[in-house]
């Protein structure tokens, strides 16, 4: 089902022919040939590390390819720096925005495209030009606002506008929806459609198959640096894409029996957190997690989920309210830190793996005991017993299928998925009664996702309480027995697994309350 019929070369906006790129031992792109039609949206999917971002960074001049050639509108070109790419009409919206946060929107647009050594006159000209672009593409952006004051969705529009202002005919978007709420995603898609109508070429890198199906005209699948399949979107489906991505049949859904919830193991009542700026980041949070159930917390990142996890895991103090852990009440003044939490049988897989869960520079066996390094089983008198530590790590690696299974390898040399499996293994090994999990599959490939999901469900089936925070709605929907939705620091609603669906959660995530917090939750705790 190849979607790249041989054709007159000038019919393509951009052609990548035989692109090859190595980073030391890693062969990131092998002989990749891709052709993108003008006035189209072309999707590029693949697991993490499949080489999508590398390929696009080569097209944008961020890296130089070791071999192969690039043709723009039929002409062979040399792209050595982003400056070359910009000149050829190629623009890129990076996954991590390339914006100067202390600058206004207009200053960001001007950067690198100032039109003269003195800003004054150029500024006025740019303003008029940008406003014309805004109208042409339906991109509304406050030009004089500081970027740091803008929500992520608007920052992204600034990035798109920046590329257009620099004359982009071909626009590359790297995982553009990762940070957006569902309504923001819709808005982004409308902008992309508009770009296509106006004859621009959009290259969309993503691992979300639903988005590929929703908006692209064609899609190429990368696996281990190679193009393994190309489809016309209208003639394929999600399952076919997923199979092509991982190279084998995968199941997107999680098999699980209905939950049989037991007693409440963890609850919070009216917990408030006020941060250093005086902003209430967690407002009157009330929740219950019972033995044998998975409670999912949905929400756009940065709406209080992190604070909730930090409070429950003992990492951050709260200002008022009570947390009840297996019957013990913890107030704002109670001594309760991460070590206390572990002693009481609460384990925590933090949201940000590299910041909070492992130390990149440590060998795997050191990362594998962080937080449990005081365990009697790992020490010899007052010293750590490294033999036992290594043996323990080997057994964790076997149980959780961590590859490569080398306990002495530096943590940073494992892929995201394998790092995460190591962390899950570490936290689940002591059979905690309560497990807090943040973004368990962020930056994790599809194969590992299924594995991690199975482990979580099996822990639940062993009668443990699990609180799951994830920005991936699909994950929340697949795993949770009950779903709480957070917006702006508040839990704005609760849905049972049966009544939950994407659009309902989506509207709640956007702050539109359709179900009030059930009174039952509050009543149960005080009883």
């Amino acid at each position: 089902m190849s979607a790249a019929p041989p054709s007159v070369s000038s019919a393509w906006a951009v052609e990548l022919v035989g692109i090859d790129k190595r980073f030391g031992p890693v062969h990131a792109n092998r002989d990749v040939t891709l052709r993108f039609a003008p006035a189209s949206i072309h999707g590029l999917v693949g697991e993490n590390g499949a080489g999508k971002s590398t390929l696009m960074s080569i097209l944008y001049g961020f890296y130089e390819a070791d071999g192969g050639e690039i043709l723009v509108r039929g002409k062979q070109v040399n792209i050595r720096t982003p400056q070359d790419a910009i000149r050829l009409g190629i623009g890129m919206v990076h996954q991590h925005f390339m914006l100067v946060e202390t600058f206004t929107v207009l200053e960001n647009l001007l950067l690198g495209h100032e039109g003269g050594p003195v800003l004054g006159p150029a500024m006025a000209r740019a303003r008029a030009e940008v406003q014309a672009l805004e109208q042409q593409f339906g991109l509304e952006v406050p030009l004089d606002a500081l970027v740091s004051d803008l929500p992520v969705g608007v920052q992204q529009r600034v990035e798109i506008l920046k590329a257009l202002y620099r004359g982009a005919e071909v626009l590359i978007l790297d995982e553009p929806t990762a940070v957006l709420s569902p309504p923001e995603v819709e808005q982004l898609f409308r902008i992309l459609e508009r770009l296509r109508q106006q004859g621009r070429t959009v290259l969309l890198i993503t691992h979300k198959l639903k988005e590929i199906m929703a908006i692209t005209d064609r899609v190429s699948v990368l696996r281990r640096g190679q193009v393994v399949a190309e489809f016309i979107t209208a003639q394929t489906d999600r399952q076919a894409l997923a199979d092509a991505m991982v190279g084998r049949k995968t199941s997107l859904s999680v098999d699980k029996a209905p939950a049989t919830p037991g007693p409440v193991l963890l609850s919070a009542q009216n917990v408030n957190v006020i941060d250093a700026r005086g902003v209430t980041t967690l407002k009157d949070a009330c929740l219950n997690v019972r033995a044998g159930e998975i409670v999912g917390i949905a929400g756009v990142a940065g709406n209080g989920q992190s604070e909730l996890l930090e409070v429950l895991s003992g990492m951050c103090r709260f200002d008022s309210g009570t947390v009840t852990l297996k019957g013990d009440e913890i107030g704002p003044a109670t001594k309760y830190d991460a070590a206390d939490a572990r002693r009481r049988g609460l384990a925590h897989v933090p949201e940000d793996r590299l910041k909070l869960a492992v130390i990149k520079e440590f060998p795997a066996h050191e990362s594998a005991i962080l937080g449990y390094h005081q365990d009697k089983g790992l020490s010899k008198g007052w010293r750590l017993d490294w033999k036992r530590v290594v043996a323990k790590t080997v057994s964790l690696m076997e149980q959780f299928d961590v590859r490569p299974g080398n306990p002495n390898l530096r943590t940073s040399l494992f892929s995201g998925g394998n790092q995460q499996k190591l962390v899950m293994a570490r936290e689940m090994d002591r059979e905690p009664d309560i497990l807090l999990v943040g973004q368990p599959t962020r930056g994790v490939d599809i194969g590992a996702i299924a594995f991690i999901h199975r482990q979580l469900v099996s822990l639940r089936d062993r009668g443990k309480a699990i609180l799951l925070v994830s920005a991936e709605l699909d994950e929340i929907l697949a795993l949770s027995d009950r779903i709480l939705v957070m917006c702006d620091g508040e839990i704005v609603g609760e849905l049972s697994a049966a009544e939950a669906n994407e659009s309902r959660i989506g509207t709640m995530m956007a702050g539109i309350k359709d179900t009030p917090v059930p009174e039952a939750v509050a009543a149960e705790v005080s009883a």
Partner: protein
Amino acid sequence: MEMFLTLLSLLDSTVRLATPLLLAALAGFYSERAGVVDIGLEGKMLVAAFAAAATAALHGSAWLGLGAGILASVILALLHGFACITHKGNQVVSGVALNIVALGLTAVLGNAWFEMGGRTPNLPADARFGEITLPLAEALRGVPLLGPLYFELISGHNILVYLALAIVPLTWWIAYRTRFGLRLRAVGENPAAVDTAGISVTKLRYQAVLIAGLLCGIAGAYLSTAQGAGFQTNMTAGKGFLALAALILGKWKPVPTLFACLLFAFADALQTRLQGVALPGIGEVPVQLIEALPYLLTVLLLAGFVGKATPPKASGRPYVKDR
């Protein structure tokens, strides 16, 4: 009236003492706004002071001395850039190393060349930057209040003082009204944004570091050929660090930095006045305590009164592309 004249002369020495601080702080402004931490302001000033004094002593020209001072300081700045930008080394370590090198080198060379225990010969008046009397200063001297103010405070400084003061608005204009300034501020906040905009991070940072070298060179020359009349071992005595403190107190902005420099210089001028003076109700305060005044003030201000000083986000971090 006498109080007024005392105050005027206090302010007058404040301006003189503030000049090297200001030049060095502005040097730090360019460097740090571009994301390169500059602990080495002190060292650059010191080599400049030495080179300026030595050259002025040998050739009898203050301007030639200034040129030599700038050259010496720029060489040190380039070394800093080579370590921190080209080789992505630790910026604090590089700065500290340069300070140590500067302290040792100036003492050793001074002793070897002039054999005066590390000093350079006393400079004659025409090998120094002399005071400039502004037009009409004498004529207006008799006008009440404004006359003395103009004569004592505004007129009668050397050219470098006026130059330093002029560089403040110039720096503001460059930083906020020019393409170079926009890129400079951007590279200190998010070098990746600059790189993806197709601008060379390395080139920008080198430019910033060079400007820092230039300004430190003027500051050093001021110390030995304008304010003083020759070089003495370690004559900067922490002024580079004080300048850094002023930059932080000024929140990395040119005009507030000027005021921070004036504040520190005022404390310094005050401590010279207060030495040996019996204060009402306290009596004579030990000299050491009074001499510590500017430094105590620095510590107090930085600890408590600055509020939240947010440095440029990328300062101190070498720019390395991902992977």
